[in-house]
């Protein structure tokens, strides 16, 4: 059993904590560096990326998170993806740049364009279907050589990873299907 941190500055961190607990690991809500170093892995949840990045800077967590992400596995969902990306097309802020990918915020439109649809997921070498929830979701608009696509919705890459960092544009924490959390907690990095 490992201790999984969930960055709890804002967003649906409780949903991630529930998924972690259901898979038999313990979860810790991370609001400062002391709780960050106790975590074997970290999840950055969905929420509002502008709010999260401002709080990261206001609370002086940027340096610690970057250092953490260079040595231990981090999973960013939706807003969490935007936080760890290398470049955000339509926003003034500087993300943590832990994974080489470009992202466009709210790329499908406003809440009225949010949707649920099947994606093709490739984890542990097996291709399966997964019903994914996209809420005011971002799009990955470019990947570096080191970043490997792990899931597609139509022609869009919706999940990707490098050695340490896993990202998804959708919300695995909002469903009861725990395959993606299981992949991050038990088979990734």
């Amino acid at each position, binding site marked *: 059993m490992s201790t999984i941190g969930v960055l709890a500055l*804002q967003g649906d961190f409780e949903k991630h904590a529930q998924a972690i607990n259901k898979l038999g690991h313990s979860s810790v809500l991370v*609001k400062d560096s002391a709780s960050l170093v106790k975590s074997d892995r970290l999840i950055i949840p*969905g929420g509002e990326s502008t709010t999260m990045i401002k709080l990261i800077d206001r*609370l002086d967590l940027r340096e610690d998170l970057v250092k953490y992400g260079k040595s231990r596995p981090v999973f960013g969902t939706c807003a969490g993806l935007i936080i760890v990306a290398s470049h955000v097309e339509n926003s003034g802020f500087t993300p943590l740049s832990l994974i080489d990918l470009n992202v466009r915020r709210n790329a499908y439109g*406003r*809440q*009225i364009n949010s949707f*649920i649809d099947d994606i093709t997921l490739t984890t542990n070498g097996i291709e399966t279907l997964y019903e994914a929830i996209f809420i005011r979701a971002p799009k990955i608009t470019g990947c570096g050589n080191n970043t490997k696509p792990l899931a597609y919705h139509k022609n869009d890459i919706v999940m990707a990873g490098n050695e340490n960092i896993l990202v998804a544009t959708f919300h695995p924490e*909002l469903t009861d299907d725990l395959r993606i959390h299981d992949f991050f907690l038990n088979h990734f990095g």
Partner: protein
Amino acid sequence: MLEKEFQLKIGLAEMLKGGVIMDVTNPDQAKIAEDAGAVAVMALERIPADIRAQGGVARMSSPKMIREIQQAVSIPVMAKCRIGHFAEAQVLQALGVDFIDESEVLTPADDINHVWKHDFKVPFVCGCRNLGEALRRISEGAAMIRTKGEAGSGNIVEAVRHMRKVQGEIKSIQTLDSHEVVAFAKNIGAPLELVMYIRENGKLPVPNFAAGGVATPADASLMMQLGAETVFVGSGIFKSSDPEQRAKAIVTATTHYMDPDAVCKASEALGDAMPGLEISSIPEGELLQNRGW
């Protein structure tokens, strides 16, 4: 299909958790709110304190003003429709607002019926004073519940009363044996299946936020500790002497609501909060919370 639509609506409410939603009346205020770290803004023509002071009929904001705010910020934009005014709600949906607040702050359009919110693709938030009211709104399709409090008063006492009432009734449902559930549902005027859900899960089936009277970082911390999952701040920011600093301070205090040192630090550099109103000084007929049922 309906179930998936509802999942998407609640999903956005989940994303707003642990944050602050701020009332704004123009694009400049919206930018200030976004820069301070608001998770969403509520676009409205007059903040509740001014509606209260100026009187008259308060209606949905002009589409032009809402659109300007949508263009100014990247965070979700909410807007209010009058209770029961489904045509205003249709207009707000056509504008693509991210959340509709069917709000007692505006003058009710229907004194008997609320909007049937299942008909809409845009999620709704509604106010409540107690659990029965919360569950009636959820049965109509609300994807988020907030306390009514007393909007524009700068006085937290009503929000506290409403939050404690809802939490207290949730706790008492958990003590019921199965014979007692139907009578309880009847007494609070709530659908049985939602009362059964609460008995099993110990919480509302949708996120539960606080609104109506939040004016300081400590007010935000208080509501979060009482069980709110996010706070709405209406008049409290732009009626204070230092909106930018206060907006930031309330955001920080909401993230660190369990850490008194952090709430203290956030409060230190602030100027004057908005002037408040003693609730008993408001004539009964002018209480906003009594609109809707």
